């Protein structure tokens, strides 16, 4: 028998303007390190991290996307299968905050209706260069009924927390669905995964 390495697989997506720190956030979360220079993300990148929540081993499959408009056709095709989306702006960059609205619209158009969303105001370590107040971040999150957090990939603030809260929200959702419909959650083990392409996500139909 193949050893079961995890109980659930969640597919997450990082979106937001270019330069807000998506790649750094993901690197901090997956490798617990910060590198100030990352090559620009072209297309889509991918990392895995397994976390434990409520006694369950949850494998997070996290997709990092390129922010520039040119890549939207290529990146929006990933929205559909995502169970959670982290929407990132940069607290030192007004434009990236204004664009959150645009990104939210993108989610509405391309993602599943019940996708869990979370807004992250990144680079909160740069207090002297802050342009977007925390209150404004909270306000927009409240308006759209979305979770919100300020983070710093550099100073390692709230990174773990952001991912685990998002994962927990998905877990709540799948758990409630589970009681309604058994097929909504796919419990996978390594062996299953080898055979079946359907394991990829429980959301693609």
């Amino acid at each position, binding site marked *: 028998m193949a050893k079961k390495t995890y109980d659930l697989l969640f597919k997450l997506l990082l979106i937001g303007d*270019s*330069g807000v720190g998506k790649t750094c956030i993901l690197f901090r979360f997956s490798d617990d390190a910060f590198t*100030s*220079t*990352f*090559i*620009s993300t*072209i*297309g*889509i*990148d*991918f990392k*895995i991290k397994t976390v434990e929540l409520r006694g369950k081993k949850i494998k997070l*499959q996290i997709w990092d996307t*390129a922010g*520039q*408009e*040119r*890549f*939207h*056709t*290529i990146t929006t*095709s990933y929205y559909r299968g995502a169970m959670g989306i982290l929407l990132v702006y940069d607290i*030192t*960059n007004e*434009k990236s905050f204004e664009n959150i609205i645009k990104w939210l619209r993108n989610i509405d158009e391309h993602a599943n209706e019940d996708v869990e969303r979370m807004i992250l105001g990144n680079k909160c370590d740069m207090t*002297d*260069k802050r*342009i977007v107040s925390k209150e404004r971040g909270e306000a927009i999150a409240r308006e759209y009924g979305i979770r919100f957090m300020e983070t710093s990939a550099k100073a390692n603030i709230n990174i773990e927390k952001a991912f685990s809260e998002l994962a927990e929200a998905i877990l709540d959702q799948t758990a409630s669905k589970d009681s309604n419909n058994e097929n909504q959650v796919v419990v996978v083990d*390594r062996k299953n*995964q*080898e055979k079946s*392409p359907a*394991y*990829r996500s429980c959301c693609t139909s």
Partner: protein
Amino acid sequence: MSVYKSRLKEFENLIKQDEIDIKALKKFIHSGIPECAKYRPICWKLLFNYLDPKRKNNWESHLERQRNNYRNLIKDFCIPPSCKDVDLSVDHPLSDNIDSSWSTFFKDNETFLLQIDKDARRLLPDISFFQEPCKYPCDIVVNSDTEIRLHHRVAPSTLSSANVERKGVGIKKINLIVKRAPENYQAMQKGQEANWEVVERMLFIYAKLNSGQGYVQGMNEIIGPIYYVFASNDEHAEFAEADCFWCFTALMSEIRDFFIKTLDETDSGIRGMMNKLTRMLEKKDIHVSNRLKEQGIFPQYYSFRWISLILSQEFDLPDVLRLWDSILADDSRFEYLICVCCAMIILVRDQILENDFEHNVKLLQNYPSMDINFVLSRANQLMEST
């Protein structure tokens, strides 16, 4: 005489001729340039058709003209209106006149210059070259009394507008706010600039000249290797910027469709190219092809980047340069590129057949280091058999 020596001699003989036999030269370059550090710049200039192999006696005047043209582009696009002779009574930063040169000046800041700035700074961070001072900085820019460097226009934490001091009636004085260089990058002293600043300028001018397309992320990864090849060679460094700009422009004219969203679905667009790779893989290795399909690993997960950046992010710089020698020297450059991509997949076929979904995505997104000649000879085989 060793094989290497005789090859070198043959090569030197080829490029010594008054009329270079470009066909023979391409064949040579395809299998590697001898003493590449010394000879690569001249080879690439020939391959980009920047130098006409048939008219060597024209080279000097042609280069002079092109370098002058480029210098004029710098003057046109990189020197802000405040440093030119503009009548401030009609054209000033607060002017409502949409034709105002100031209004274009500030609009550039917001749109593509910001993106270029971010990407120029994170170009090839594994080598120090781009952070080092340029040996031949652009005199008009670095010696200006006003701060006119491009990245100052988009420096964070400052307003992207000019400070207008009103004294009495009318406008007396306009300062561009002095901006702080971001923490990670050492500001070069007056008279100096870093190589990444040169890259930023070239990309900015390219975007201005090709405003329909503008700047698309990834162009930095295309211009980087070209600039590196010219600027790190003592004989070619002095005019590296101008020469690189024109060679980059020539290369972009061939691959611009990769960067245009509306052309994605066409044959020459990125999706068309990825489809070619898929079809070739189906033909050459059906097992691997099926495996990837079964696992739902779509070509855009990895080959979007491979193709649009001509593999510049997949290997270390010396290997990228060697790879580009062959690609540029091939008569069907981008068909050959597809062969290289296909060879890369086939060379890790055993792992692909063994691995699960996530390991395969990781494998293809972070291609393992491998002897580049190995990849090339496999690609040659594929090319011959198509």
